[in-house]
């Protein structure tokens, strides 16, 4: 096996020192001279026409510098999500948003915004804007919203309130598959609306120059696509716009793939109106009510199986709650189906799914992107079938999981899988053999163990436009600058991408610096999402690194008078292959050019030698990533308190086939964080809605996401299948920790109680009610 110098090591994160000392700069920390502060007036109604807006009183308040409404901002349709920049032909992106519209479609929709000398003055001014509404009927459930009598939220061509296309695909003959099945499970599952609840709320600071050039510091996960959206809204050339993170972003989890809700366009619009820089920071409540959520909705599954446990056919359907604007509601049902159908091998499969507009906060991208919804239903089906045919659910899964080269529904091949190893390792850690022996008769606490398996993607291609560029510029002093257009939203890309560059070129990690998350200093990249950054942007980084390495070696061969094939670079020293590469030549004299006895030269000295002869080494990586499935097996041990209905997750074993862990400590962190977010999804997190469409969970306190006190013992287990397509064998990991929690916790709770819950979260209220019903 190849040995690495930098890859596979727990290198300390490049951003950690700044973050640990409080020096790290985030969008919410930005402060520039003359800056104004913006506040947004939001709709109190779920669906209404704006008959009139009177801003005259608000304008008179001292310190108010500008007020933006639909009347004085661009009437240019867009989509806050990056989907409008990377929808693949022949699909058409759905553009259904203005900065401000004459219709409001959910409680929290934007009506107007004020720029003032302080947040306090801006907030005061909002109270003095008079808006006359004409209320329209509203609808909140996706199934209701499809009915003929439901109000029209947007005109749609695919069906009543159905944005984008209906996604349909499959293979084989589904009817034949079920006809040949000995046993069939069929049921419907209901999923809640979950919130990313990242720590930094949506924020942007915009500065419009007198030449019309626009600079926006923001919390976006995708600076380059965001620039494209801003360019369209404000009819300004992309080349006159700079979008950047400053450089840190307080989490993402999908909530700002594209714009940070409407923070960027509102700040730009107000900056244009006032001629001053304008900063907007969403309150936590605004972040809850008015930025994208995970899709709630319905998933139907029908699974057919032979008595010997061979899966024959699976039919999967979904109807997701899009909320009031499309965002990623075209793609999410697609990924739900694609990932749901990619786990198990069988001849006959079909999928039919779409979203439906409702009068609620828009749903968009959130970690897992439809996959957790699919697996909650599918893994319940698998466990139920296992019970009915009397087979260990672990064995049933191992019998049916996809293998390398299998025919499947995805438009790329399964190039690697370590799933069986994931199952084996995680089962051992959880103690799977204890399953069924955990409960004492009469105990008030019921214990159970459940599992699930799944996959995901390593980037967005071919579902979305997905390509990467990386530029590596070797500086005259030998230090190396890597430029990649992805941000670091906390996932460690500003450490792992330099690791890949250092490995490819053959230099020490300390020799590589990186510029990221800035459209001015980096080439185009679609950003950090889809578990793609390390895999996809990393492929471009390795290509750029190899390019630079080749240039350096070609030049060195001439200088050193040694055949190119005999040269190697290790730890920043160019040397003859097989010689003691660690021996530094610097200062010894042999590094000097022209010496016949030269066997070593440092990269540092060689590049200066080249500089004096009018040459610089610049490597370029331009890649279209292939795609590859990361695999995972999750096992949960739970306790269910029969007196309170409380579900407590006590232990988690989460094994992930990440191809190759470029930085194992960072990979573990991704898995652990995903697991806990999934525990929240399964047991407590949900945004509910009042009869009039008001969201009821609009603060951390009300929303109940897991705290340190709720965190179970989590064992993150890394499995490496060395993927043939990824950089040094790596695959995606970012979203994967989140995918199986609800599925496996649902199975664990069934194991404990004998009750199958088709709806999450498993709140004490919901669980207690069923426990009581079960007693009768």
């Amino acid at each position, binding site marked *: 096996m190849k040995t690495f110098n930098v890859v596979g090591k727990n290198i300390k994160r490049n951003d950690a020192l700044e973050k640990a000392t409080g020096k790290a700069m985030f969008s919410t920390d930005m402060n520039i001279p003359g800056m104004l502060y913006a506040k947004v007036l939001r709709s109190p109604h779920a669906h209404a026409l704006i008959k009139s807006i009177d801003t005259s009183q608000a304008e008179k308040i001292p310190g108010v510098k500008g007020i933006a409404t639909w009347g004085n901002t661009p009437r240019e349709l867009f989509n806050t999500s990056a989907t409008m920049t990377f929808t693949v032909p022949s699909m058409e992106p759905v553009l259904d948003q203005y900065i401000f519209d004459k219709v409001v479609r959910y409680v929290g929709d934007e009506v107007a915004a004020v720029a003032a000398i302080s947040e306090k003055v801006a907030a005061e001014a909002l109270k003095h804007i008079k808006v006359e509404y004409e209320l329209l009927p509203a609808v909140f459930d996706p199934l209701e919203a499809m009915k003929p009598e439901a109000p029209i939220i947007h005109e749609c061509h695919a069906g009543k309130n159905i944005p984008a296309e209906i996604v349909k695909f499959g293979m084989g003959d589904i009817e034949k598959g079920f006809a040949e099945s000995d046993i069939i499970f069929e049921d419907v599952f209901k999923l809640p609306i979950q919130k990313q609840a990242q720590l930094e709320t949506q924020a942007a600071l915009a500065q419009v120059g007198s030449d019309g050039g626009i600079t926006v510091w923001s919390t976006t996960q995708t600076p380059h696509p965001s620039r494209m959206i801003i360019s369209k809204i404000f009819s300004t050339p992309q080349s006159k716009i700079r979008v950047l993170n400053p450089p840190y972003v307080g989490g993402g989890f999908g909530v700002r793939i594209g714009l940070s809700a409407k923070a960027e366009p509102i700040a730009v619009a107000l900056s244009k109106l006032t001629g001053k820089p304008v900063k907007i920071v969403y*309150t936590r409540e605004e972040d809850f009510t008015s930025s994208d959520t995970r899709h709630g909705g319905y998933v139907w599954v029908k699974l057919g199986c032979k008595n010997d446990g061979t899966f024959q056919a699976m039919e999967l359907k979904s109807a997701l709650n899009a909320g009031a604007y499309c965002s990623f509601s075209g793609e999410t049902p697609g990924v739900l189906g694609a990932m749901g159908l990619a786990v198990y091998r069988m001849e006959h499969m079909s999928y039919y799914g779409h979203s439906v507009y409702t009068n609620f906060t828009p749903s968009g991208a959130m970690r897992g992107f439809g996959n957790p919804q699919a697996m909650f239903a599918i893994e319940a089906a698998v466990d139920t079938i296992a019970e009915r045919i009397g087979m260990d659910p672990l064995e049933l899964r191992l019998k049916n999981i996809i293998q390398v080269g299998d025919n499947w529904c995805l438009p790329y091949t399964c190039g690697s899988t370590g799933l069986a190893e994931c199952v084996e390792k995680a089962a051992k850690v959880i103690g799977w053999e204890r399953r069924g022996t955990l409960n004492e008769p009469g105990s008030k606490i019921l214990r159970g163990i459940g599992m699930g398996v799944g996959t995901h993607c390593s980037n967005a291609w071919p579902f979305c436009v997905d390509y990467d560029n990386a530029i590596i510029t070797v500086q005259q002093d030998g230090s190396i600058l890597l430029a990649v257009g992805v941000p670091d939203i906390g996932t460690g890309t500003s450490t792992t991408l330099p690791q890949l560059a250092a490995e490819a070129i053959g230099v020490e990690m300390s020799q590589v610096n990186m510029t990221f998350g800035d459209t001015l200093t980096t080439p185009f990249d679609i950003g950090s999402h889809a578990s793609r950054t390390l895999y996809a942007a990393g492929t471009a980084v390795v290509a750029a690194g190899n390019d630079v390495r080749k240039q350096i070696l070609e030049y060195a061969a001439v200088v050193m008078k040694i055949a190119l094939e005999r040269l190697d670079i290790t730890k920043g020293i160019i040397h003859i292959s097989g010689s003691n590469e660690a021996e530094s030549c610097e200062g010894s004299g042999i590094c000097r050019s022209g010496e016949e006895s030269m066997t070593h030269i440092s990269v540092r000295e060689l590049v200066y030698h080249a500089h004096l002869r009018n040459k610089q080494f610049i490597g370029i990586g331009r890649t279209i990533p292939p795609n590859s499935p990361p695999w995972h097996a999750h096992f949960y041990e739970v306790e269910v308190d029969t007196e309170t209905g409380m579900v407590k997750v006590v232990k988690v074993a989460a094994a992930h086939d990440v191809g190759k862990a470029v930085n194992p400590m960072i990979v573990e962190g991704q898995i652990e964080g995903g697991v806990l977010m999934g525990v929240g999804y399964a047991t407590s997190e949900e945004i509910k809605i009042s009869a009039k469409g008001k969201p009821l969970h609009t603060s951390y306190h009300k929303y109940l996401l897991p705290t340190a*006190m709720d965190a179970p013992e989590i064992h993150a287990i890394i499995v490496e299948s060395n993927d043939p397509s990824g950089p040094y064998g790596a695959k995606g990991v970012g979203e994967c920790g989140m995918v199986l929690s609800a599925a496996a916790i649902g199975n664990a709770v069934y194991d404990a109680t004998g009750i199958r819950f088709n709806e999450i979260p498993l709140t004490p209220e919901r669980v207690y009610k069923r426990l009581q019903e079960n007693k009768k």
Partner: protein
Amino acid sequence: MNTFKLTFTLNGEVTEVLAEPSEMLVDILREKMYLTGAKKGCGKGECGACTVIMNGEAVNSCMIPAMKAMGAVVETIEGIGNKDKLHPLQESFINEGAIQCGYCTPGVIMSAKALLDKNLDPSNDEIKEAIAGNICRCTGYVKIVNAVMSASQKIKG
């Protein structure tokens, strides 16, 4: 505007600043002292991102009216260490991968410091309790708890 002169000890230095009675300590630190280490995640005392130590106790600085800080001794993340001499907690957080997006980090470290200032031998549960008011959405708290534990051992020597 009804301002008053707020005098308090900030990171070891006697500090005077004009404040409004309605202002919160977090805004004074961030907007007037340009100490942006304490973050604002909610403004309602629910997320802990703005945690600082006031008179030895970890507090949500978004819930401390300026008046209440009068005469107080306030420590922020910027005051407990720097790149040349890190606090053992900062060192552990860096070394053990306890930092991801970093937005909660200063607050978590300050809550943990308030704990270790009083208890150098905390149990896992005591650590979890001390940081229970600090929401982290990235890490699952695993490496955070480990980092606090190892910092306590480092300080004990």
